[in-house]
């Protein structure tokens, strides 16, 4: 089980790229990336999570997304870009799709 997490800024977007498997052992790395985004010098307008290479998301991954939502607060939308079918299903089945914006491509 491994996860790749990359944090960068593109304009006012805080961008996290996820790849691999987001399970209980990987969730802390994702969570610290979320904190890094919001603790950075930039004021973040949107949190964008690029998910095209994320193959799997366990319960801990969902919890981390909820954590991101809480960290971002009401004013900062969260955009999930190109989640794979299985990951998207998990997000929809647990109702989290109401809390985020889901897009096919990053614009």
């Amino acid at each position, binding site marked *: 089980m491994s996860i790749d997490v990359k944090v960068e800024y593109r304009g006012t977007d805080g961008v996290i790229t996820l790849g691999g498997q987001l399970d209980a052992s990987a969730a802390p790395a994702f969570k610290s990336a979320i*904190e890094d985004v919001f603790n950075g010098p930039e004021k973040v307008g949107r949190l964008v999570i690029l998910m095209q290479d994320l193959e799997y998301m366990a319960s801990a991954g969902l919890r981390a997304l909820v954590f991101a939502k809480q960290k971002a607060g009401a004013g900062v939308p969260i955009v999930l870009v190109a989640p794979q079918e299985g990951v998207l299903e*998990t997000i929809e089945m647990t*109702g989290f799709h109401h809390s985020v914006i889901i897009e096919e491509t990053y614009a």
Partner: protein
Amino acid sequence: MSSEIPGLEPDAVNPAVTEAVPKKASKGKKAAETAPVAEAAPAKKKAAPRKKKVDAAPEPTPEPAQEAAPAAPAARERVQLEPAVPDYSNVDSRIDFYPTHEYLGYRIRAGKPLPFGATLVPNGVNFSVYSAHATACTLVIFDKGDPTPKVEIPFPHEFKIGNVFSMLVFDLDPETLEYGYRMDGPWDPAQGHRFDPSKILCDPYARVISGRDVWGQKPDWDNIYPHRSRLSFDDFDWEDDKQLETPSEDLIVYEMHVRGFTRHGSSGVKFPGTFVGIREKLPYLKKLGVNAIELMPIFEFDEFEHSHTDPETGEIDHLNYWGYSTLGFFAPKAGYAATGKRGMQVDELKALIKACHKMGIEVILDVVFNHTAEGNEQGPTLSLKGLDNQTYYMLTPEGYYFNFSGTGNTINCNHPVVRNMVLDCLRYWVSEYHIDGFRFDLAAILGRAQDGSPLANPPLLESLAHDPILARTKLIAEAWDAGGLYQVGSFPAYGRWGEWNGKFRDTIRKFLKGEAGEVGEMAMRIQGSPDLYSSRGPTASINFITAHDGFTLYDSVSYNEKHNLANGENNNDGANDNNSWNCGAEGETDDPWINALRQRQVKNALAMMLTSQGIPMILMGDEIGRTQHGNNNTYCHDNDLNWMDWGLVEKNKDLLQFVQHVAAFRHRHPVLRNRWHLSGRDYVGSGYPDISFHGERAWSPDWSSESRTLAFMLCGKHARGGTVQDDYIYVAMNMHWEDHAFELPYLAQGLQWHVFANTGAEVTSVEPGDEIWLKDQRTFWMGSRSVAILVGKAPR
């Protein structure tokens, strides 16, 4: 909740804190001294020879010899708070978030006795469990799915307050944690004690239980801890959701089984048989006119309880399909969630409830507090039995289980501790899951004292009725039990409880099949049973004709006898007083006349129910003629007997449309949905009583025992106590096998009768509002066994 951020130093402003930490921590020594001893000593005082073979001196802790001598101090240095673990950045650096003891490398401190259960607290998990008679308790911790425990931590003696063991354990990963308890204490069944420290017990307050994560997946029978307690997190994004608080009189309830609703291949949903499957079908329910779903038990249960394995094929059948056998009252059934295998059933269920509320549909849970899955003395020890048998179960003076539930044991629900558990449970579901109401299985048991006798003033029922958190939820009792206590109309309601009205069911069925002598009874049932609920009003009456127990509506007009052979009990199980009539052939037939009559009878039944005062409840699939092939007790079948065949939507679309029309008609007309009983008087000066009865002659119904006809009229000026204006409604019921002409009552100036529904006509209903003006305003011809609904309004 670990993170990569180094912990902050303790608040230097408060020297007491910085001082205290190491000092307290050095007390770790004491833990090692007391912990193992605490459980070793009483173990020798076991009472009575044991029935089963248990190791004479069970060794709950996995480590070598326990001496009272303190271990080498080196093993317990001052607790160092390494930066790698907890994040204290958002926590007061207060003393109560730091460990005081250490055990096998696990840092612990005395926990908070309340709340019971396992609670996520800053830096750790608080475990708290009650037992009045246990002599020692050990916390058993597993990594998710592992066959053997990771560690077993005895509760140090000083961590027990009163009858509560509580401990805070630091640095656990809540995502992978599975936990349980071993309880030591007397094995003395005659005194009601069945402690067995060889068993690992599920926390009765567990909010998630793993072990049956995927429905029907064959369990590992050798698992030493098959149903495992887990944590859940209260971080669901509810947005602005809350309970709908729909007035009771406006409800149309739909009783359904989570799996049965969409499991059939014809359902077309992506994840059949799950919570998310229901979510996909909400538009169907909305269109049907349902505004509350009542889910058959969704608390975690074991579908393999009492299952049979065919030795030839290895196939497992006779599952515990309905689930009236609770393992844990706080945990949703993982096997009902498509995401159960990933432990996300909590979110999936919450997402369903949120979606229901968005659609204006309430969610009512069918809850089973009368018994558990532990059976009688032959049953397994899973939780309550091993935690504190004498507290949790009603026992005979000899220590056997009272069986008022018909399933082996009876929960001792009027014991103050058990009562609080029930209350905690319901409050949890209301506050954390936004549940709108509860239906209590065999609720008469909830009114029994600890010795089984019925109480005049049962404290549990009173507590529930007046609880501040449950205050706006619906409370519905199944007002009888298997011990012969039948309280329909006399259930201790405190002005608050509604009841499944079994008399409504029986009366409608008898009248429907053309039995003599039911007309007077029918008049009562139509009005919301004022003979039973005079002080409570019609909303105390849940009007139903069918429910999961018994025939489906289609089967009640297709079978004279129950056909339960598939249950494997020689047709001896299930009720015999079905009041059903097969319309002339037992079971399926290709006789068009019989099939037409059956369709008509189903419509008749639903039309009568949906025009009665009270709260109507439709059984899943009755709107499309679902059949169980004459089986009236399908508790154990995970197959077509219980799965709703969505092909019937097309096959019986005429029936479905009729039900949609009549439900919409009910929603449109407040005169059908009064909060208080009708009086039979004119108190608004309209010239008509709020309800009047008629027959072949207006104003003069035939109450004689041979009569099988009855009509009633509701005066629209009296709708909701005269507070709103509605049309006049006239419902004629001819359950005779011959046609009858009904003389229509005159309407006030400017109003005319229009036909909304007539089950004896070619077209049986129209859209509400599109009623057809009646040319003959004096006489209405009713075909045999038919119901008509007329509206008195100004012609267009």
